[in-house]
């Protein structure tokens, strides 16, 4: 009788100590997933089937919407940051490929975070790196559609479609330009910071999170410079590219964050 009491007691003590220990070890890093949910204004973006209106009241039907996002940095309440390691910070989001639309950061240190910062496009260091350092989404032989061969460099944001049922009414907006190798060229790299609704938000091993980001494709042509699609249906770099880059840098917004 006594013996069994002692036994139970000792188990209780061990359990207590173990649970104490658990509570005193700091929370480990957690998974943060970031979803890029492509939209057109207030509606979900549907390729090929749906017509949308831009700020200029032009009709637009998208057939393609693809972009690079890279160099993610998460900022905590106290201003300190978690910089996602270089080897896993480049992503190509493609509206035609569901899997590409959620990117994962498996090792975000626990803490209270207020915002995420990232680059739209591929930074100049990577844009001039030797081919051995261009793997995965940066492999220019397998992702040749996102690389300009006539002006060495990645296409940062690419969208195409039609602006009227009439034949030949195609629009194509391709923007790239990292600043050039040994002689300067256009630089359309944009860095954006998105603050979290309800900040600060806890991340960590007990707080796996899913950041739901809305990306408004119409903001390629809407913004500081409202583009008339029929007047300027094609931009592939060149003089109009900076205006488009200044528009689309505002196309991202964190809609909500939920437990993963």
């Amino acid at each position, binding site marked *: 009788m006594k013996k069994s009491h002692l036994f139970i007691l000792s188990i209780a003590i061990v359990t207590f100590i173990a649970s104490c220990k658990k509570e005193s070890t700091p929370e480990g890093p957690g998974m943060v997933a970031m979803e890029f949910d492509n939209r057109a204004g207030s509606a979900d973006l549907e390729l090929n089937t749906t017509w949308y209106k831009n700020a200029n009241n032009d009709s637009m039907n998208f057939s393609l919407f693809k972009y690079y996002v890279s160099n993610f940095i998460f900022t905590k309440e106290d201003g300190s940051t978690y910089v996602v390691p270089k080897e896993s910070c480049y992503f190509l989001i493609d509206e035609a490929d569901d899997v590409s639309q959620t990117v994962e950061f498996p090792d975000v240190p626990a803490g209270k975070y207020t915002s995420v910062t990232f680059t739209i496009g591929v930074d100049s260091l990577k844009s001039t790196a*030797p081919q051995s350092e261009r793997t995965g989404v940066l*492999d220019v*032989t397998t992702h040749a559609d996102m690389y300009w061969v*006539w002006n060495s460099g990645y296409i940062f944001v690419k969208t195409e479609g039609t602006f009227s049922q009439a034949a030949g009414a195609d629009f194509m907006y391709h923007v790239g330009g990292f600043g050039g*190798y040994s002689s300067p060229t256009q630089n359309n790299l944009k860095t954006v910071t998105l603050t979290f609704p309800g900040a600060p938000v806890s991340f960590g091993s007990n707080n796996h999170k899913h950041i739901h980001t809305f990306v408004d494709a119409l903001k390629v042509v809407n913004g500081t410079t409202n583009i008339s699609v029929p007047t300027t249906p094609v931009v592939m770099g060149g003089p109009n590219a900076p205006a488009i880059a200044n528009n689309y840098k505002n196309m991202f917004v964190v809609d909500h964050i939920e437990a993963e």
Partner: protein
Amino acid sequence: MLKKIYYIALVVFFIQCTKKEDAQPNIDNGFVAPTNFPAVRYNLTENPYSNEKRELGRKLFYDARLSRDNTVSCGSCHQQVASFAHAGHRVSHGIDNKLGTRNSPALFNLAWQPLFFWDGGVGDLDLFHINPIQNPVEMDETIPTVIDKLKTDNNYLALFNKAFGTSEITAIRFNQALSTFLISIVSNQSKYDEYLAGKTTLTSTEQAGLDLFNQKCASCHSGILFTDFSFRNNGLSTTSDFGRFRVSVITTDSFKFKVPSLRNVEKSSPYMHDGRFNTLDEVLNHYSNSVVNTTTTLDTILQRNNTLGIPMTNDEKTKIISFLKTLTDNKFLNDSRFSEF
């Protein structure tokens, strides 16, 4: 006995000496830059040079399977007899008889070139090869498909094995082999080079041409490579090709094109980015008589003393052309290490 050994030693010594000279440009024992050339730009650390890679690259360069319908090779537009330019073609002529918009430039001394294309749009030779292969008017093929084609060829499996240690065929290896071949194409054995080395003399006409060249042309076609690799407007009447502006989108770059080297220029007609001139006479007549200032970007060197162009008499032009011909490098034009067979 001792005498005999001395003789043998002496003979061996001489043989070695002559061997060294014959091996110029020295591309058989690693990539050895000529001593009077500037620093190599190509990244040899990333892609170490070897004869095996060069051989594989040569095979690829002349292989029409790099094009969609297996009809066009790199060598179709870049012919050794023409200093690897496209003989007789104003603008390039590719697959399905489609025409490009620019003239195929001569190819040599690429290891020293910072940017490629007439407008400098390409910055890395290893990533260059995607250009012609994917261009719909050149070869209209994709690299992954080319790789698949090569994988079915046992010859290539063996060559990749020799060059890289395993027979795996990847895009990176493909590009590296082509680059190795391209950088191996060094031209530095013209009559002018021999003159610089003190091995021959120039005729009085050639010497007079050299002096005139230094006065009138060398500010742009400068140094041992005969180009400063800058982008300039040399006063051609303009077309819809905006040159460097297309890449940089800087207004002052409009109608500027890369200053081409003038080595082997005798062999690489037609001339200029659009191949508009067939002869060196026409080129010199352009500089003396038809430089136009239709844009604000005409090079200041070509509008000195309120005169457009470079004043030259016919006699001076003849002399300059005779000097330009001393830049022809027959060893390079006939070097079997660069040729198809």
